[in-house]
Every structure is written in structure tokens, then in C-alpha cells.
């Protein structure tokens, strides 16, 4: 597919001398980004660190390597197909990132403009990832295990409850008041009770995460099922559908867009509970790692853990959205005859 913008059409038949200018304009962002990363590398070497960090030289080398790669890919972008255009799109961000890292390096490790133990330099965080990796990885695995278990239990329970009360007035009669009473309570409010009511802190945390997930999933599944147009049921019934068919093949697929909103909201709520539960109860996971790092005033560890945590949460949401896009492919109005 070829697309033309107005400016391209307008300049299409101008003098060939502008071809060079066009080429320059194409590669300029890539070159600028490469320069910014080279500046970062230089900033690492410009003078002695004010503190004692072991990874400064390694970081400088890495920055120069990245700068070189960005430069090569940026200049040759037009010959690299999709990878080239992907990089070109991102080069403003690469530039900003390079500038930010340079300033950060200068403001912390080189001139200590920012108070030191609280604002560690980039190399201190890199040092955590290289030297404290096993502990960090253990924490990541523990967090994922706890989160996944609680989330799946909560999502499944919420989905089944939501479908039940959306479908059956009798179940709704009993469950709805309970839901109204317990649902809006923040799951963390249960924390003190949960930790002595459950045999282990792990099961208590799982329960709390499931609770935080379950409420939005239940409410949105319920509203999704309740808002299915009756015409869908009429059509299915005249075609010979029995009640189970109406639930499984009409109500649930029609409610799925709502269900995914609930799953998204539940995911956000469960992250909050996960971190609190790990900080207070479970002696494992990234929340506990943060707590532990704070106890030792190990600020670099905290930043490192925060970064990992943010990547994990963002990754989980991306995964959910990708799943939604695949399941709800019929919703998109992309292809039209």
C-alpha cells in the first residue's frame, strides 16, 4: 500500500537539489538520537564519579554501542524495511531518553546536584540488576505467582457470579445485597482480618487479590448480561435454542465487551492489593523487596524494583488488551465493504 501526503505531492516535482535536503531531513532525527546517546556515554566518562560505583565504564560502553547502532540503523533506515521505519518513528523518543540519561548522569554521579542517597545515578541501578539479580528475580517470580493465582480466581469467580445474577433473578435476589455491601469496601480493609483468618499469609493475600479483582468483574459482567437486547434471545428462541444455549452462546458473547472492561479494572485494583499484601504480610515479592530496600536505605534497589514492577504491570495490561483485541475481533470496524 502506498500513501501520499499533500506535502509529498507538492514537492514531488521540484528541483532535484531538494533530494539531498529530503534525505537529510529523513536521517536527522536518527543522528540526533545517536548524538544524545553518545553524550550520555561521554557524560559517564567526563570526570570521576563522586561516589563508589563499579559499573560506570560498562555503562559508558553500552551507551556508545547503542549510539552506534542508532546511527547505523537511522542512516540506513530506508534500506531496512519495517525495522527501519519502526526506529525512525521512535527516534524522537530515543533522543529524549538520551538527553534525560545524560542530565541524570551529570546531576547525580558527576556533580551531585541532587542529594545523593535518595537519587542514585543510572550506573547504581544497573549495578542492582547485575549484582542483586537472583533476589530480584525471586521477588518477580513470587509476585507473578501470587498475582496470577489471585487474579485468575477472582476473575473466574466474578465472571460466574456476574453471569448468574445477570441471568437469574432468584440468584440476583440473594447475591445482589451481599455484593452491594461488600463490593465497594477496599480489599485492603480486610487485611488485618484476612491475615489471621487464613492459615497462611499467602492464602490471605490470594483471597484479597481475588476480592479486589472479583468485584469489578462481577459488576460489569452482570451489567453486560443484563443489557443484552431481548431481540437476540427472541431470535435464538425461535431457532430452537434452549436456556443453556441462550446463556453460553447469546448472553455471554454479547456481554464480553463489558467483561473485558471489568477484567481491566480488576487488574488495576489487584496490583494495588498485591503490593500492600506483599509489604505487610507475605515475605516475598517485589512489594516486600521495596519494603526491605527501604529498611536498608537502599534507594537504588527501590528504583530498580519500581522499574521492574512498572514493566510487569504494564506488560500484564498489554497482554489483557491483546487478548481482548483477539477475542473481540468482531467489534472492530476496520474492514468494510
Amino acid at each position, binding site marked *: 500500500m502506498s500513501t501520499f501526503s499533500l506535502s509529498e505531492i507538492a514537492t514531488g516535482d521540484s528541483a532535484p537539489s531538494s533530494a539531498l535536503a529530503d534525505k537529510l531531513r529523513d536521517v536527522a532525527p536518527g543522528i540526533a538520537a545517536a548524538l544524545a546517546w553518545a553524550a550520555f556515554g561521554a557524560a559517564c566518562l567526563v570526570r570521576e564519579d563522586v561516589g563508589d560505583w563499579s559499573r560506570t565504564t560498562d555503562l559508558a560502553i553500552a551507551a556508545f554501542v547503542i549510539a552506534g547502532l542508532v546511527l547505523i540503523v537511522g542512516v540506513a533506515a530506508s534500506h531496512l524495511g519495517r525495522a527501519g521505519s519502526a526506529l525512525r518513528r521512535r527516534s524522537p523518543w530515543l533522543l529524549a531518553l538520551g538527553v534525560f540519561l545524560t542530565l541524570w548522569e551529570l546531576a547525580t554521579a558527576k556533580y551531585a546536584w541532587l542529594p545523593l542517597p535518595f537519587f542514585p545515578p543510572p550506573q547504581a541501578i544497573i549495578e542492582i540488576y547485575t549484582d542483586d539479580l537472583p533476589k530480584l528475580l525471586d521477588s518477580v517470580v513470587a509476585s507473578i505467582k501470587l498475582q496470577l493465582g489471585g487474579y485468575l480466581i477472582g476473575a473466574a469467580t466474578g465472571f460466574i457470579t456476574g453471569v448468574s445474577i445477570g441471568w437469574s433473578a432468584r440468584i440476583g435476589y440473594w447475591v445482589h445485597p451481599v455484593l452491594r455491601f461488600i463490593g465497594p469496601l477496599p480489599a485492603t480493609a480486610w487485611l488485618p482480618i484476612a491475615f489471621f483468618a487464613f492459615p497462611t499469609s499467602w492464602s490471605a493475600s490470594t483471597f484479597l487479590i481475588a476480592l479486589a479483582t472479583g468485584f469489578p468483574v462481577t459488576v460489569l459482567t452482570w451489567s453486560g448480561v443484563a443489557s443484552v437486547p431481548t431481540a*437476540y434471545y427472541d*431470535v435464538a428462541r*425461535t*431457532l430452537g435454542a434452549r436456556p443453556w444455549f441462550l446463556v453460553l*452462546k447469546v448472553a455471554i*458473547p454479547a456481554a464480553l465487551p463489558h467483561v473485558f472492561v471489568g477484567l481491566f479494572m480488576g487488574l488495576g485494583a489487584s496490583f494495588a492489593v498485591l503490593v500492600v499484601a506483599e509489604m505487610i504480610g507475605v515475605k516475598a515479592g517485589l512489594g516486600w523487596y521495596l519494603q526491605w530496600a527501604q529498611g536498608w536505605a537502599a534507594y537504588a534497589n527501590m528504583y530498580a524494583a519500581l522499574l521492574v514492577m512498572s514493566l510487569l504491570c504494564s506488560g500484564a495490561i498489554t497482554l489483557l488488551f491483546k487478548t481482548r483485541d483477539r477475542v473481540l475481533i*468482531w467489534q472492530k470496524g476496520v474492514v468494510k*465493504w
Partner: protein
Amino acid sequence: MVAAAEAVRAQCPGASIDIAHVDHAFDIDGAELKVLDDVSLIVEPGEFVALLGPSGCGKSTLLRLIAGLDKPRSGSLREDEVSIKGPHPSRVVVFQDPTLFPWRTVWDNVALGLEAQGILRKQRHRVDAALDLVGLTNFKNAYPHQLSGGMAQRVALARALVNDPKVLVLDEPLGKLDSLTRIAMQAELVALWQRKGFTTLLVTHDVEEALVLANRVIVLSDRPARIKADIVVDRPYPRHRGDPHLADLRRQILGLLGLEATW
């Protein structure tokens, strides 16, 4: 068993519908709204009957009773002498809106009835045949949002026909289509009905549509609906819209509906 049923169906594809003294009403905010008043009607197997009446008179309600989606307050409805107790795939409804399931492809929408009856796996060819019948084989993998209004209504028609209904119940199925698509689909409907031989009940408020399609036109009164006239349209198909006999009938029906002044 299936073969025997097929044979019976081939012998007599349409069913008769016997409506006797049907009354129906809705409760709206505690007040009773009477919609059907002593409606009696016998539809012979294979007939094409149009139910014509002012909008909101209760003709769609009558169709819902025939489809088995609602139960009448009093009176009886029977299909081939068997009392109608609920919906059955032998009486399939095509509604004014195509109401296709947006999460299913065209093929899966058409397959709905066979799937609901648990016979899809053995009878997949019937879905293909129904799609072929309405000329949408090329669109079988499309999703409903990708279809035009006319195509969507054709899919709804195929979804009904795939069940080999004995009675096809049409609730203003062409009401929302543009006039050109509408004329084309009227011709398609007549052709399908002639080919398949099912009994057809069509609700419409379009006098011309009733006259072009049906061999009997039942004129209903304002709410509560009573049968005002039962007019036989004894003209061969395909019918010509300018046929003077149809023009006479049209004038007569408009008169019954209290619209002679506008004619």
C-alpha cells in the same frame, strides 16, 4: 427417521395456522392495554398471507403469538392442528431488524438454528445451501458490521430458511431498507416462497408490498386489532405494480384504513 421426516416435508412443505378467538393485552403501569380483540384466522398450507394495519395496531403482537414467543390471554393458536406452546424452528421469524449476532460471522449466524438444535455437525451443507440461496456465499466469513442493510437482511433470511421452516413469519423485514433494495428483495421473497412452498405470514404497513407479495391480505383495525377484511389477491406472479386490478384493491384497502381522502 431423518429421511422419513424429509419425505414428509417434501410432500407438504407448508403448515396450516389456525388462530381461534385470540385476545391479548399488555399491562402498562397497572392499566390494561388491549391489543388483540377476538382475532380468528385460518391460514392454509403454502399460503402467503399479509397482515396489514396501521402502525402500533398489534400486528407484530399477533406474529409473536404465532411464533410462540408470547402466550395469548385467551383463545388458541395451532400449527397443523397442534397447539402452539412455545417457539419452534418450524416457525421461524425474520424481524424488522436483522438482529444478526455481531460476534458471529455470516456463516456462523446462518448456522445458529442448526447449532441450537444440535444437528450442525452433520448438516453443515445446509448452511452453505442457504447462503447460496440468498447469494451471499462470498461473504460467509464477513462480520455483520461489514454488511449493508440489504445484505444483513438477506443473512437473516438465510438464517431462517436454513431450518426448512414450515411457516415463515416476517415482521416488516423490508421496512428499513431503501426502496430499490426493497423492490429487489420483494421479488426474491416471492421466488423463494414459490420454490420452497412454505406458508408465509407477512406483517407490513405498506399496502403495495402486501398486494405485490401475498395471495391473501388481512386488513386489521386500529388497536385493539380486529380483522376488518380478508381480501383474496388472485393475480399471477410475478405481479406488475401497475396492474389495474391491484390498483383497485389498493384503493379499496386504503379506504378500509380510513385513508381514501389521500388517495
